[in-house]
Every structure is written in structure tokens, then in C-alpha cells.
């Protein structure tokens, strides 16, 4: 192995370097200047995002344990963009006096989670996949308990770590069955011999899928989601609902279409059932929520059900639609969460009723929120519509017309509850609406990026073409 070979891993190496620089900066920066860590970390991460788009070597390392191609790089870039927006939106929250003394830990932990996700996406065997998964989970549980002085945050942390441990146990049990039957942990070797010849094969696949379903919070493995999303700091909730979910979906897609390619009809049945359950239950529970964070938690469960439609089609069409949808979902969900965050910080209000009449006092925020919800619901002019449209196309491509019908019905239901919030902001009368406030620069910037993203990805076809071109190289 030469130095040139190591450059194949540059996404991970750059992230490790950034984490180390922040760690060292923490030592040298004095107590008073803690704030300066924030711009340092964000600038470094911004450079990392740009660097990610530079042309790169592809190939595999360590005897196939680490693989990277254009597809993997694209996935990492999509996640990087999301993390950058989360960092920008978190600045105001990080500057609160209670959180100031743990700023660098926040950045280091988030970056190490991203390192884990990158290794997970590039994994060529179950061992690297598992270590990446753990690296993507354990730090985030510590971050969920970041606001330690709040009971809810501590509760979120413990719930997340317990459910993550349980799901990892189930996943490992499935992997151990697969290893016992095939005698290998390398994806290519397992994929070559894995068939649906016995019930143990089926069980191994189901356990593996159940473990991943916990991470993506699919029904019936979703019970931890609402409590954790509500209790954790919003910045971490954003990360969980967008980045963690996106990374897990990518990896699930890669493994289902490479390792379990031979048993595709089997996991397709599984995905259909789980998808219907997830969409319907996520939607029905979202209608009942009053707290906006819980509301967004259930809406994100429902969105995960839609993403499964893209996974059903194990070809490049499905891959394109999944990546495209996740990209749009990042911008839309982060915009919605961004508004909820700033309103909660300025007025302490999180319920839907509190938003009554907000348009008259804070028109810009209301418009942003409306755009985000239109995009999540999939109303034509904005990006979300195209995202859902391609997902439905992918599922229809495999002949799942009934499923697409159910998905469309669910999309209509979701439109109802998104519009309830929009109606509250624009039409409902309120004697004491949320007072006018000025947002700080970083929040504005974060929301602006999201709004631009929602419009540009929807209207500019080059984005879709770019993703599609890379996915067409899929074997």
C-alpha cells in the first residue's frame, strides 16, 4: 500500500483531521474565547464539504473491507451538506451560556458520528459496517443528553442508548446467523452464496432488517422516536431525523441490493408490509400531536415509509430516487426544524396553537415554514413533489401499483396535517400571537440555504441528472 492508496479514504481522513484540530483548539483556546471554536469548526467543515466534491480516486482498500465509488462519494457529500446546515443553525443554541462550556465536544461528537456513517457507507464487510453503525450511534446518544440539567434531555439520552443497544443486539444476532451459514463476513462472498434455501436464512435477513429498521425508526420499531425527538436538543433532533436516518437508508439500500440481491423477492415483501405500516401509522399519529417537535417526529416516521418505496426497486432508478428524496428531505425538514428552533428559543413556545396568527408578526418565518411543509407534503411547485414523484415511479416500475395507491392516499392525509399548521399561522385569529423578533445571522443563513435548496432542487433538473448519472454506474 502506498500513500496514494490512502487518498481513497480521504473523506474519512479529512473528517478525523478536523475532529483532531477542534480537540487541540479546545486545549489552547482560553475560557473567554470559547466562542471562537464555533467559526473555526464550521469553516473547517465547510472546506470539507467543498473538498468532498473534488474529483477523487475510487477503488477498494484493506482487501475489500473498505470500498468507495462515485455512488458512495455522492452519499457522503449529501450527508455532509446536511451536517453543514445543522452546524450553521446550531450556532445560536451553542452560544447559550449553559452550553458554552461544551461547544467543542458538540463538534467533535457530531463529526465522529459522520466518520462512522462514512465508514458504514463504504463498508465492504459486516465488521466495518457494524463498527461504523456503532460509531454513528453512541456519540449521538451522549449528545441527546447534552442539556443535562433538563430531565427530558437526560431521558432522551438513556432511551436512545437503550433502544440502540437492543437494536444492535438484534442486528448482531442476524449477522452471526449469516456468518454461521456462509462462513464469511465479506459482502461479496456472502452475496455469492446467500440464497433463501432455509428458514435460518430468512431469520438472519429478518433480524438484520429489524436492526436497521430501529435505526430508521420504521413501524413497529418506532416507539423510541417521539420521546427522543422531543427530549433531545433541537439541533440533535435535526441530526437524528435527517442525517442518521439518511445514512441508515443509504446503507440499507446498498446491503439489500448487494449482499441480499439473490433473495430480492423475499425482502421486497418485507419492505412492502413495513412501508404501508410506517406510512399509515406515522401519519395517523402525526394528526394527533400538539407539540411541534413530536409532530415532526411522527411526520419523519411517515417520510421514512415513503423512502422505502424507492428501496423496493433495487435498480439505479430506485437509488436515484432515494438519494434525490433524501437530499430534498434534508432541506425541507431542516427548514421546518429551523423555524421551530428559533421560535422556541425566542418565545419558548412549541405547540401548534401557539403558532396561531404568526404570519402577522413574523411573516418571513411563516413563509419559510409553509414552504418547508409544502415540500414535505409534496405539493407540485416545490422540490418535495418531485422527490415523492420519483419514489412512486420507482415502486410502480416494479409493478407495485396497489402500494403506490396507498402511498398517494397517505400523502393526501399528510397534506391535511401539514396544512393544519399552515392554517394556524396564516388564518387562525389570535389575541396574543408570538411577538415579532429578529433572528440572528446564522439562523437566517441556515434557513436561507434551506429555502434556496427547496426551490433549486425542484426546478433545476441538472441536480437530478447529476445524481442519476452517478447511479447509472450501479452494477
Amino acid at each position: 500500500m502506498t500513500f496514494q492508496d490512502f487518498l481513497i479514504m480521504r473523506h474519512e481522513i479529512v473528517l478525523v483531521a478536523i475532529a483532531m484540530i477542534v480537540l487541540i483548539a479546545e486545549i489552547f483556546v482560553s475560557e473567554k474565547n470559547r466562542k471562537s471554536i464555533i467559526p473555526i469548526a464550521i469553516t473547517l467543515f465547510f472546506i470539507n464539504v467543498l473538498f468532498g466534491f473534488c474529483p477523487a480516486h475510487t477503488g477498494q482498500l484493506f482487501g475489500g473491507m473498505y470500498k468507495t465509488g462515485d455512488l458512495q462519494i455522492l452519499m457522503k457529500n449529501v450527508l455532509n451538506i446536511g451536517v453543514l446546515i445543522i452546524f450553521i443553525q446550531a450556532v445560536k443554541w451553542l452560544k447559550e451560556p449553559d452550553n458554552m462550556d461544551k461547544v467543542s465536544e458538540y463538534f467533535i461528537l457530531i463529526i465522529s458520528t459522520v466518520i462512522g456513517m462514512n465508514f458504514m457507507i463504504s463498508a465492504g464487510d459486516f465488521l466495518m459496517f457494524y463498527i461504523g453503525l456503532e460509531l454513528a450511534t453512541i456519540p449521538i446518544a451522549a449528545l441527546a443528553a447534552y442539556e443535562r440539567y433538563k430531565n427530558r434531555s437526560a431521558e432522551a439520552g438513556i432511551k436512545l442508548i437503550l433502544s440502540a443497544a437492543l437494536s444492535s443486539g438484534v442486528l448482531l444476532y442476524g449477522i452471526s446467523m449469516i456468518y454461521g451459514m456462509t462462513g464469511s463476513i465479506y459482502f461479496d462472498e456472502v452475496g455469492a452464496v446467500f440464497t433463501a434455501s432455509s428458514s435460518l436464512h430468512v431469520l438472519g435477513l429478518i433480524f438484520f432488517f429489524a436492526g436497521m429498521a430501529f435505526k430508521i425508526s420504521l413501524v413497529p420499531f418506532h416507539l423510541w422516536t417521539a420521546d427522543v425527538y422531543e427530549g433531545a436538543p433541537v439541533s440533535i433532533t435535526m441530526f437524528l431525523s435527517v442525517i442518521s436516518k439518511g445514512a441508515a437508508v443509504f446503507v440499507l439500500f446498498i446491503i439489500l441490493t448487494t449482499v441480499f440481491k439473490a433473495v430480492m423477492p423475499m425482502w421486497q415483501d418485507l419492505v412492502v408490509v413495513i412501508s404501508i405500516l410506517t406510512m399509515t401509522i406515522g401519519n395517523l399519529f402525526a394528526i394527533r400531536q400538539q407539540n411541534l417537535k413530536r409532530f415532526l417526529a411522527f411526520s419523519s416516521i411517515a417520510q421514512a415509509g415513503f423512502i422505502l418505496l424507492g428501496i423496493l426497486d433495487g435498480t439505479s432508478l430506485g437509488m436515484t430516487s432515494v438519494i434525490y428524496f433524501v437530499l430534498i428531505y434534508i432541506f425541507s425538514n431542516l427548514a421546518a426544524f429551523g423555524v421551530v428552533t428559533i421560535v422556541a428559543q425566542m418565545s419558548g413556545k412549541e405547540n401548534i396553537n401557539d403558532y396561531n396568527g404568526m404570519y402577522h408578526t413574523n411573516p418571513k418565518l411563516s413563509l419559510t415554514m409553509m414552504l418547508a411543509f409544502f415540500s414535505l407534503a409534496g405539493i407540485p411547485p416545490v422540490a418535495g413533489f418531485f422527490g415523492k414523484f420519483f419514489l412512486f415511479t420507482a415502486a410502480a416500475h416494479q409493478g407495485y401499483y396497489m402500494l403506490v395507491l396507498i402511498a398517494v392516499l397517505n400523502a393526501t392525509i399528510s397534506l391535511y396535517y401539514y396544512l393544519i399548521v399552515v392554517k394556524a399561522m396564516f388564518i387562525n385569529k389570535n389575541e396574543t400571537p408570538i411577538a415579532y423578533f429578529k433572528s440572528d445571522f446564522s439562523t437566517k443563513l441556515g434557513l436561507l440555504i434551506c429555502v434556496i435548496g427547496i426551490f433549486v432542487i425542484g426546478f433545476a433538473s441538472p441536480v437530478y441528472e447529476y445524481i442519476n448519472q452517478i447511479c447509472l454506474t450501479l452494477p
Partner: protein
Amino acid sequence: MEFTGTQLMFIIFSAIIVIFSILTVTSRRILRAAIYLLFVLISTAGIYFMLNYQFLAAVQLGLYAGGIIVLIIFSILLTSHISQKFEKVEWKKSVFSAIAVIAGIIVTLTAVLNYQFEANNAITQEVDMNLIGTKLLSYDRGGYVLPFEVISILLLASMIGAIVIAKKGKKV
């Protein structure tokens, strides 16, 4: 039905593992649960010895039985009162979890027992320490240097995570 010595040893070890695992999760005193777990881990090491995995057995004894149990007991002593007993679980909950556990056991057992595992004819011999060391740091196929290094990042992140949780905030 006659048992060979190895089979008898296996039955004893697995019986200890099963019984003490159940005791670990049902015990209402947390310190006792930790000690029951110790027995489970030691018996697992016994099974490794039976399979001639000396290295793994030593690691199991040294790290898990020795290190981790001590850590668990330390954290129990630091955070809770030893005399404290957990509340009794409602009978409804225990009935449902018992049904779930038994159903799970039936499903996995039927699947595992129905599978025709290929008999392994390789002669069991002690794994060379040299080989383990080389494999652990090899970057070829079958080498483990990458996971080895990534785990160090995982451990660093976990330590920092522990600091985040333990660091004293201004409000308590």
C-alpha cells in the same frame, strides 16, 4: 444415551450460562445481577477453552470477567445504594414478556435446528499467537487493521461523550 467428556462439559457450561443469564435479568438487586453476569462470562470462557480458542478465552476472562465486571460494580457502588431493591414487575408485564421470549426461542430454535450445518472436519489446534498478531495488523484480505483503528476513534468518541454527560453544568 452416553455422553463423552466434552459433551458433558458443554452441557454443564451451557446450563450455567442459561440459568445465570435468566437470574441476571430477573434479579431485583443490581449488585447480585452483576455477579450473576460474572458467572455467565466465566462459563463462556470455558466454552472457548473447550473449542481450543485459548487466546479468546484468556481475553474473555481478563477483559470481560476481570475488567468489565469490576467497572460495572464500581459504577453501581458509586451511583446507587446496594441495599436498594427494584420494584416488583407487574404480573401482566411479566406474562407478556414471557410469551414474547418463549415465542422468540421457539422461532429461532426451529430455524437453527432445521438448518443442515456442514460438519467441520478441520483438526482443532491451538491458534498461533503469531498469526493473531499478524492478522490484527494486516491490511490484506482477512486482516483487521482498519476496524482496529476505527475502534480507537469509537473509544475516543465514547470517552468524550461520557465527559459531555458528566461535565458539571452551571445549573444542577
